[in-house]
Structure formats: C-alpha cells, structure tokens
C-alpha cells in the first residue's frame, strides 16, 4: 500500500513499463548461425541472437579462455585467466607473424615516431632511465656469477 509510482530513481534513463517482470520471456530476432566457437557466460542459459565472430579462441590462449568461461563473471577465476590469456596471445601473435614471414615493426606499431616528434625530452629521459636500470641489473647479475 506504500508503493509510490513516482518513486522511480531510474527516470529518465529507464522508461519503466513493468516488462522486467516478464524476465527472459520476450520477442527475439532470428538466431545468427554459429560457424565459429563462441565462449558464453555461464550466467545466461542460451547464446544471444546476434554475436561477434572476431578472432575465435585458439592455441594455448584459447585453452585458458575456455577455462575462464567455466566460472561466472563474479569470480576472479574468470577475469584473471582472461588477462593472462591476453598476454599469452601476444606471444602467439608474434609467432604467427614470423610464421607468415612478417617481422613486426615494433617502433611503427608503438607510434614511437610521434613520441619522438612531440616529446623528445621525455623519450630521452625514459631511454636513459632504462639504460641505467639495465646496467645496474647487468652489474648485479655479473657480481652474482
């Protein structure tokens, strides 16, 4: 008896119609045919009617992603393995490039020419810092040997 229809804090972002109470029972479009592997959240019962098909899971990173999707979006076991898979995927990408006869131009890919053009002092400072750290590390390792 205390329900107030004016008490709608989601207005105007949400136009409340009561449709939420129909839950997942609503009209749907046709199902997009699935021709590649699509990893699906275990928080939904069926795949969406439309989905992206870019870069299906493959290789070691794909195995890690399949493991991640066994766990819900609530779990670190879902997200940390996906980040780890992303890093593994970078190495897989390098191997694929070399296998295809392409040696990546890391300087071009990282846009370093732009950095040099507009931030020379910053780049020089970074370069010197990395060189010093490298020398210190080399000296420590040499001493240990």
């Amino acid at each position, binding site marked *: 008896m205390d329900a107030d229809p004016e008490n709608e*804090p*989601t207005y*105007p*972002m*949400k*136009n409340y*119609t009561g*449709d*939420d109470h*129909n*839950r997942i029972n*609503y*009209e*749907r*479009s*046709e199902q997009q045919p699935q021709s590649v592997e*699509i*990893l*699906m*959240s275990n*928080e*939904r019962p069926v795949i*969406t*009617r*439309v*989905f*992206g*098909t*870019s*870069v299906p899971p493959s290789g070691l*990173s794909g195995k890690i*992603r399949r493991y991640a*999707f066994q766990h819900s*979006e*609530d*779990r*670190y076991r*879902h*997200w*940390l393995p*996906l*980040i780890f*898979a*992303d890093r593994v995927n*970078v190495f*897989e*990408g390098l191997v694929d*490039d070399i296998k295809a006869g392409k040696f*990546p*131009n*890391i300087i*071009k*890919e*990282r*846009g*370093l020419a*732009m*950095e040099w*053009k*507009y931030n020379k002092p910053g780049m020089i400072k970074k370069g010197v810092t990395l060189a010093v750290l490298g020398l210190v590390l080399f000296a420590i390792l040499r001493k240990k040997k």
Partner: protein
Amino acid sequence: MLAMNYRGPYRIRAEQRAMPEILHPEDAIIRVTRTCICGSDLHLYHGMVPDTRVGSTFGHEFTGIVEEVGPLVQKLKVGDQVLVPFNIACGKCNFCKQGLFGNCHESNPMATAVGGIFGYSHTAGGFDGGQAEYVRVPYADVGPTVIPAEMDPDDAVLLTDVVPTGYQAAEMGGIKEGDTVVIFGAGPIGIMAARCAWFFGPSRVIIIDHIDYRLEFAKNYAKCEAYNFKDMADPVVFLKKTTDWYGADVCIDCVGCEAEGNTLQTFSGRVMLMQAGAATALQWAINSVKKGGIVSIVGVYGPPFNLLAIGNVVNKGITIRANQASVKRLLPKLIDHVMSGRLSPKGLITHRIPLEEVSDAYRLFSSKLDNCIKTVLIPSAKH
C-alpha cells in the same frame, strides 16, 4: 580492406583484412567515412580490458554509408549516410523496450554485465569495430540513424558516443537549478559533460584534471571553472572549501579506471591489477559530494571490482547513478541541440589523421601529445 589490427598492449597496426559479411538477416555493412578514437579505447590499447584478443579491430564511434543490407532490414537502404551508436541493441528485449539500449540482452553472449559494443573486446561481444574501411552492423534497423543532410559529418561522428555520454553523465546527476556540479576528468567526455551540465540550470560547473592544456580547453569550450589537482594538497578538502564546506550537489566521474592522483590506487589497480584499474576519481567524487548528493558515473571500469569508500556512500546517503549511455534514446534531443547551434561537438576535434596512420594516432592520444583532445581517423577516399 584496411583495418586497425591490435597486436598487444601499446601495439597497433593498419593492415589488409577480409571484408565483413552479412551474418544475420538484420545486419548491414557500412563503409566507414569517419571514426574516432575514444578515451575508453585507451583502456584496450593499454591491455587493461580482459579478453582483448590479438587480431581484433577496435572502434565504436563511427559514421558511414550503407553498402549492403540483410533481407530483414527495412528502415535503411543502400546509400544512406548514417551515424551508428556505439551500443548494439536488438530493440526487442525487456531492456531495450525500456530505453536501456546500452544494456541489450541479445547482443553479447560473453558477459551479462555489459551489452554488445562495437570493437570493445570479447567482453563486449567480440564484434570488430569501426576503425576500418568497412564494418558489420547488427540490428541495423535499431541503432543506425540517418544523418540530417545539413549536419556536418564531424558533428555526426561525435553523436555516436561523446555527446550522448557527456549529456547522460549530466542527466544522471539530476542537476537542479542553482546546483554546484563537479566533473572529474577533462577529456572529451568530461568536457562535453561540463558543457551539457549547463542545460540543467546549475549555478557552478567545476572541472578537475591534472593536464593544464585540457583544463584550459575546458574553460573555453564549456565555460566552466577548471582546476589542476596537482596544485592541491588534497582535492577533497579543496572542493569542500570551495563549496562552503558543504560538498558539491553533484559529482560526475568521467575518468574511469586509469585515473591518476593516488599511489595506492595506481599501484594496486594499474600496476598489480589487484583491482580493475585505479578508481581515484570515483573515490574523490564520493568524498566530495554533499550528504544526500548524487554521484554520476560514466567513466569506464573493467571487471571484476574496485576499492572504494562504500561506507561513505552509505553514511552520506549518496545516490549513485551509472550506465553506458543509451545513445538511441538521446539522439532526437541531441540532434536538435546540434542543428539549433546550442551544441558544437566538432569543436572538440583537434586532430584528423588517415586510417593508415592509426598507430601514430593512438600514441598521440594516449600520451596526450600536441595538445590532443579528440582524434578522428579518416579512411581513404579512394572509393
């Protein structure tokens, strides 16, 4: 076709790839005429978003010309010039029916927490994005909107994300006449939120950031007060002082997960990845807003969670309103604002770069070089 290709954190290249195809009867294929780099694309570029796969094409802000339509597409026809909202929305699920086009339940099988978004990793549906010459656009009768003939294409492309997100940031703040509004972040979204805040009648609009050229731009474009938090011992104390020790009526977070300003947040979130990035700006928003105030969040945060003063949210009775912008819901109003001259989105664009030089464009935007505010990529005109 030429397309942006992600190779790993901070590594991007433009290369030839296969043309997109119609995969669903409600798809369209769009030939891209303008595409932007968003501040949230930088989270992908920096490797912060889980399930960002090598070989993906980014880009969720684009306009183009309809090249091909699926058999069930009725509203669009080949040759139409369209702006495409960054949300992929079916128009039929219970969320779309209630205007929540950014929360569609039938466009992303990989995560229930976010609807489908063009070019925003597999966490947002695995769709290749618009930083390419052509792009597949699902549910073509729902999102894509024909650009009015008199509209400048540079204004149109900013209506796909920047303007609706900035506007909705202000709208969610529930700004009343006479309010003091504080916006964290002087990137394109923050600057647009500051500009749009004035539509709701506040008495003060304040923007906080740490980059002087962006604060200067915001002062001129959005006619707001602008302050550098690096000049402050404590931004929260500064904001309390400037609001008569009461706190702001509304605080808006337009920064998201790569905020600067707090060592613990930066180390735990951006270095160690023990939380989903650094939530410094949101922490300041919670602590700077008055008791009973509203915090509006459009800054992008990835999964799984962040360290925040949730106790202060409870004790101060703060209302938090947050969402991805529902572009389709807002477009009629925003198109009217642009056509009437009340808003000039293209004023944010500082750099126009050919798509072939996408790796340079990302570096320019990421490192904030050459006073960059907003970068538009332009595919070759050879067609």
